[in-house]
């Protein structure tokens, strides 16, 4: 029982992180699926989300609004992802020339973008850790018997679940979602059906990066906000997509939670090594991966 109480917070942490990883992975897998591109800038955009949120909040706080944190936070949750999506669309625009070529070019481009965005953040906001204020009603701990657990993490989990459900509805139940799903499955076919592939790509990139940005806002208070926070978000996203299957909604969610839980539980046993476990898992999966693991054969497969 003692053991269970000790490990429970780690499991809950793992779950929270896992749900947010799932959200990041969903954005990531949409991009991989529709554009056959590994977006290494996903992490920096994740970070950018957190920073833009902070900027929004401090702007609202400073411009004489005397608004409660909850108002600022909510506004940030709306404004910042839009900003991130804008940057994302800018990236997509710049990348267009690489579309016909070896997908390695796209990877390199987004890698460069990751550096540029991270350095841009550093220039604008400095290298120090920043504090992310959260609305009071979700701050502080909740007390369940012997267990103290941060309210914010519960909020984060609930928020992630809601976002995932909303996203699911969007993809599965709307016409636009159906087009995206088709595009993830077979982009040639989609074009043949007369759908504007350029618009689709731009839209998917905007959506995918916005999701990364939102995840950044939610995780900001938990992980701390610093320019380099993106790397630890994008690598698990890739792992999740490889394990869960490209373009697979269910796969991303399940694998996301699994990876999060692994990381959380490893943290219980060896605090520092939880990140390493993700890299090891990624290496093992990539080395051993059967051809079929991806479900659809994409140009990424060799």
């Amino acid at each position, binding site marked *: 029982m003692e053991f269970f109480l000790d490990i429970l917070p780690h499991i809950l942490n793992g779950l929270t992180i896992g749900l947010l990883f799932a959200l990041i992975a969903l954005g990531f897998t949409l991009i991989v699926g529709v554009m056959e591109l590994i977006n290494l800038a996903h992490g920096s955009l994740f970070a950018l989300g957190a920073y833009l949120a902070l900027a929004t909040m401090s702007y609202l706080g400073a411009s004489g609004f005397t608004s409660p944190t909850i108002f600022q936070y909510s506004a940030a949750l709306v404004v910042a992802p839009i900003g991130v999506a804008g940057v994302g669309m800018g990236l997509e625009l710049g990348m267009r020339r690489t579309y016909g070529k070896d997908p390695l070019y796209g990877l390199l*481009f987004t890698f460069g*973008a990751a550096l540029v965005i991270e350095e841009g953040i550093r220039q604008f906001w400095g290298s120090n850790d920043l504090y992310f204020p959260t609305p009071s009603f979700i701050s502080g701990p909740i007390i369940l018997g012997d267990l103290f657990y941060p309210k914010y993490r519960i909020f984060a989990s609930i928020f992630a679940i809601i976002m995932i459900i909303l996203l699911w509805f969007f993809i599965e139940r709307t016409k636009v979602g159906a087009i995206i799903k088709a595009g993830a499955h077979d982009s040639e076919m989609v074009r043949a059906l007369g759908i504007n592939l350029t618009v689709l790509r731009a839209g998917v990139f905007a959506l995918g990066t916005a999701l990364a940005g939102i995840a950044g806002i939610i995780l900001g208070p938990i992980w701390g906000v610093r320019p380099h926070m993106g790397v630890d978000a994008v690598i698990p996203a890739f792992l999740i997509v490889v394990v869960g299957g490209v373009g697979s909604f269910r796969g991303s969610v399940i694998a996301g939670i699994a990876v999060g839980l692994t990381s959380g539980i490893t943290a219980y046993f060896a605090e520092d090594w939880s990140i390493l476990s993700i890299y090891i898992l*990624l290496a093992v999966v990539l080395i051993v991966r059967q051809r079929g693991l991806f479900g659809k054969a994409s140009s990424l497969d060799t």
Partner: protein
Amino acid sequence: MTQILSKFRTDFIKMGLVFIFLATVPLWIGRIGLYDYIALEILIWCIYAMGYNLALGYTGLPSFGHGAFFGIGAYAMAIYQFHFGGTSLWIGLSLSILAGIVFGAVTGGLVSHRRGIYFALLTIAFGQMFWFLAIKLRDVTKGEDGLLNLERLPVDFGFFSIDISSSNSLYYFSLVIFVIVVVLLWLLIHSNFGYVIRALKQNETRAQFLGYNVRFFKLISFTLSCAISALAGGLFALAQRSAFPDVMALHWSGIIVMMVIIGGGMVSFWGPVLGVMFYFITRDIVGGITEAWLMWFGAAFMAVIVFQPEGIAGMWGNLSKRFQRVNTKTKLEEPQEAQHEPV
């Protein structure tokens, strides 16, 4: 021997010019407002980059984790001095090379059956793992504090030894290493082995069907590349008089990739050197104007990828081709596409 010299005259002239140019650098670097140490840094990174390009430019292996091997080489030299009180420069550098071979071969053995993006991502995973271990194994590496106060061990020939503790003398020692590495690389690339490597970069399937054990070739090439990078790392430890984990992180592994591509390593032997120069010019000259120099470097890289993936060397090549077009004698037939050929 003489046949090679005559057939590749331009190559050797270029090589000679580069070596002579580099030999003069310490004489004038002070006058353009830079320090001796920077010349040393640039030279070491040139060795690193040339080694790296064997994998990327010549074999088509996009390694995003090569910083790990540079760092391992540095740690080999550092651990030799720090934990074993080593005093022989030759042994220290040999250990660096050996570490590069061992870790390169192990990593290569696990990843060389992959290509393109998967290969790249695998190398990221391994690079991060090594970096992580360098930070965590504090007993060996002292973690983020690094291994400090290393000696620039003298060049000892038994009956006499040369002190290389000054930046300039270490520079000339490194230049000798650079010359040896460059010549050996050139020979390798033009050898049978190099021929096969370059072929498999262009078409791995065909090379397999011609009877070449492609995976083995990739492994050897990758390992050699790691060994050279590790040697550069050993020199780096001497230059810095210390070894830290940070060169092993994704950030720095990425920078060597960007340097080499910007310089034109994908198409040119000297591309990596051009790329290293470009980086350091950006750092020290643009850096003097703005703190955001790395951002501009990244932006330049993005522009190169989109507009000119052949880099600086490629641009130079295109310009000179344009001048030569007037003199072209052979006129080739227009290619006719009778079927859709995959790229």
